[in-house]
Each structure stands twice: as structure tokens, then as C-alpha cells.
């Protein structure tokens, strides 16, 4: 739950500006970006995702670091990713 997963923005939903399609470790899912409303997010930007919400905008370097740290966590990261994939909101279509 406390783990932040780095994801790269692919597309912001046209019907709901709070939803965006992100790439997490090669798979695309939908997350909520409402908490970064003031950040002027664009496709290509990296964000740190907590419980389905983008919590902070990060750069590519930080994303690589976060990902490497998570991979070192082993089981805890696997569990978090599995939870992320199984998330009902994540599988929603963005448009």
C-alpha cells in the first residue's frame, strides 16, 4: 500500500480529465491523476502511483530508481503489482 509504483503517462482521457492511461512495467492501465491537477501532466511524463492515484510527478531518473528499488523488494513488489493488475479501476477503458 505504501509502495509507490512508477508509471509513464500515455494518454489523458478525453471524457474525464482525471483519468489517464499509464504504462507500468510494459503494461498499460488506467489511473486517477486528479491529485496532480496543477501539474499540467502530458503524455511521456512519469508519475509515482499510490493505490491507483498519481501522487507525484517524477523524472525518468527517479522512475528508474524507484523501479529498481521495488524489484529488490521481491515478494512485496510482486504482491503490489499483482494487486495493481487485479484492480477493477485499472482495467477500465479510458474513453
Amino acid at each position, binding site marked *: *500500500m*505504501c*509502495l*509507490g509504483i512508477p508509471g509513464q503517462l500515455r494518454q489523458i482521457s478525453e471524457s474525464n480529465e482525471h483519468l489517464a492511461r499509464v504504462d507500468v512495467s510494459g503494461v498499460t492501465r488506467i489511473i*486517477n491523476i*486528479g*491529485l*496532480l*491537477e*496543477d501539474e499540467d501532466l502530458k503524455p511521456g511524463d512519469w508519475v*509515482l502511483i*499510490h*493505490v*491507483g*492515484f498519481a*501522487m*507525484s510527478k*517524477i*523524472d*525518468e*531518473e*527517479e522512475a*528508474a*530508481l*524507484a523501479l*529498481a*528499488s521495488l524489484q*529488490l*523488494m521481491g*515478494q*512485496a513488489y510482486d*504482491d503490489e503489482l499483482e*494487486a*495493481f493488475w*487485479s*484492480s*477493477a*479501476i*485499472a482495467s477500465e477503458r479510458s474513453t
Partner: protein
Amino acid sequence: MRFVDEYRDPTAARALVAQITELAGDEHFKFMEVCGGHTHTIYRHGIEHVLPDSVELVHGPGCPVCVIPMGRVDDAIAVAEVPGVIFTSFGDMMRVPGSNGNLLQAKAEGADVRFVYSPLDALKIALENPDRAVVFFAVGFETTAPSTALTLLQAKAKGVKNFTVFSNHVTIVPPLRAILESPDLRLNGFLGPGHVSTVVGQRPYRFVPAEYGLPLVTAGFEPLDILHAISMLLQQISEGRCEVENQYSRVVREEGNPRALAILAEVFELRPHFEWRGLGFISQSGLALRPEFAAFDAERRYEIPGVRVADPKACQCGEVLKGVIKPWECKVFGTACTPETPIGTCMVSSEGACAAYYNFGRMHREAAVTLGRRSTVRT
């Protein structure tokens, strides 16, 4: 992996350790890392073993799963057992022991307990099951609380009638103050939390130098981040400075995330007091739903037993959470209490000090004990 190598560079690490050793000199320094993520990094990378004896790290209360008292787990189970309720929770909370079992056991006994990744998943379950009452077990510091808040705003906007939140959200500053007021612990400074600070920023920590005369450096999660932050703390002390500094400026901003803070303030208000595992009642430390969200408040909709349950006698999570003892100094560590059969919360979450120590630190300690014994035999 070019970025990663920079932050795991052994030469840079050695240089930082040398700097730390020199700055610490002959004195002894005790720093607390507040965040469970830091505790994990420290054990995962064996940072305690590269630091000089003059610098000691103590592990703070920054793991939201670890600080939930048993009575609140009992309350959660009582709500989960109400007929017709679908009780949703993060996976981390499912195995946290109450006084009479955990949520997984309640599920095995027939309660409809479902594990969700996000509060939005819980809301979706509510929308798909209009004839059932869906409750979300909300835990976490300011890192997760804005997500719950935004979910509640959505639920209100959609006029959802069958969704409530059992809020156990807590804030980071009051426990820091409680620790600073604790007579059994003498600290020289703090490694400030990383992800929480992306939301709250740096300002809330200013009372630490202003009122208690201690430095605080917000740190990132890489091994070199931790070492760098320790050297920044020592640098401040050696120069006679005492400030809030930000080592993790590549992610944390001075002002935090104003949008997230505004949403938090819109949905939540501070409880007069809230019980923390091991730390007791801390005033103004828990977040309850504002009266405007009463219809979404599980504590108003359901009868909550609210019985205060003392921690098991053998369990010393409280002392571990305050940094008074090391995880392995607890009487039941690694014997009666393991990640498979946790007695205390610190052994449940992967970010709990006991679980981190059990998974990564234990081997080093055993090796140290064995080596110590051998050298005794030899002399």
C-alpha cells in the same frame, strides 16, 4: 540501469561513510528514520553494517499498518460481520491481528471481506452491488489519505448511497511530537519521511528544530540517499546549525502537494485524539470524516464496539515503534512472532521494522553472534 548504478555506487558509498565517520568523531549519535520505506532500505542494503559505531539508527512509527491498535482491527471485523456488508481492505491489513483473529479469519468464517488495491475499487464494488452496503477500511498517512478523500468526493458527486469509509487515517506530525516528548528516548535528529512529504511538504517539520532543537533531513529511498541524509544531519550538527533540509528534492517540494492538502481539508477533520499502537492516545493525530460526509462515515452508520484492547503482554511493538528497543531485542522476535504467524503489527507489513529485520537483518546478527562467540573461545 545507468541511473541506478549512480545511486548504488560502492565508491560513493564508501566516501559518504568516511565522511560520516569523520563528522561523528568520538561522539555517539542516534537518528530516527520515521518512514517504514527507509527502514526497509536500511535492512535490505545492510546500511547498519557499514555505518560506524558512532551512528545508530532507530526505527520510527512510519508504517501505517504497524500503528493500528488491536481494538480498531476488532472494530473492523465487527463491521465486516454485519449481515449484507461487503468489507473492503488493502491486502496489508488482512493479516493484522485483532484480539480475536484477523480479517482473513473473519472471511473464512463467512464475512464478505474483499481485498482491494485502491479505494476506487471499493467504490466500484459499491456501484456494481447497489443492494449491498460496501465499507472501505481506510488506513495510511498523508500518502494514502488524499486518495480516500478524492474517492469520497466522487461518491458524493455520484450520489452513491451504499458506500462508507471506516477511517483510520493518521497524520505524521503528532507522533513525531509524541516521540520527542517521550522520556525514554534521546535522539539527535530525524531522517524525514519521503512519500508523505510529497504531500505535506517540508513546512510541518519546522517545529522539530524550532521547539526541540533537532535537525531533520527528508531522505530518498536509495541506499546513497540514506547515507547522504545522515551526513547532512551530522554536517548541520558540526556547524552548529539546526534546520529542516531536503535531501529528496528530486521528488519532495517545499510546499508539498497543495491540491492534495486542499482535498484532505475538504473531506477530513482532526479527531480530538486517536489511539496508536505502542504510542497510546495522541491528540489531533487521526482523521475523521467531516460532518458533510456523515452519510459516508462507517463510524456513524454502524455500531462500532470501540473497545480498547491492550497489546499482548509478550509483544513489544510499542517499544520497537518508539525506537527504545531493536526488533531482535523483543522477547518473541523470530520465535513465537514471525511474518507467517505475527503477534505484533511490526511483523506483518513488509515495511514493519520487525519483518524487515527478520527478512534481511537476521543473518547478519546471527553471524555476528557466532563470530563473537568464536573470538571469545579463542581468547
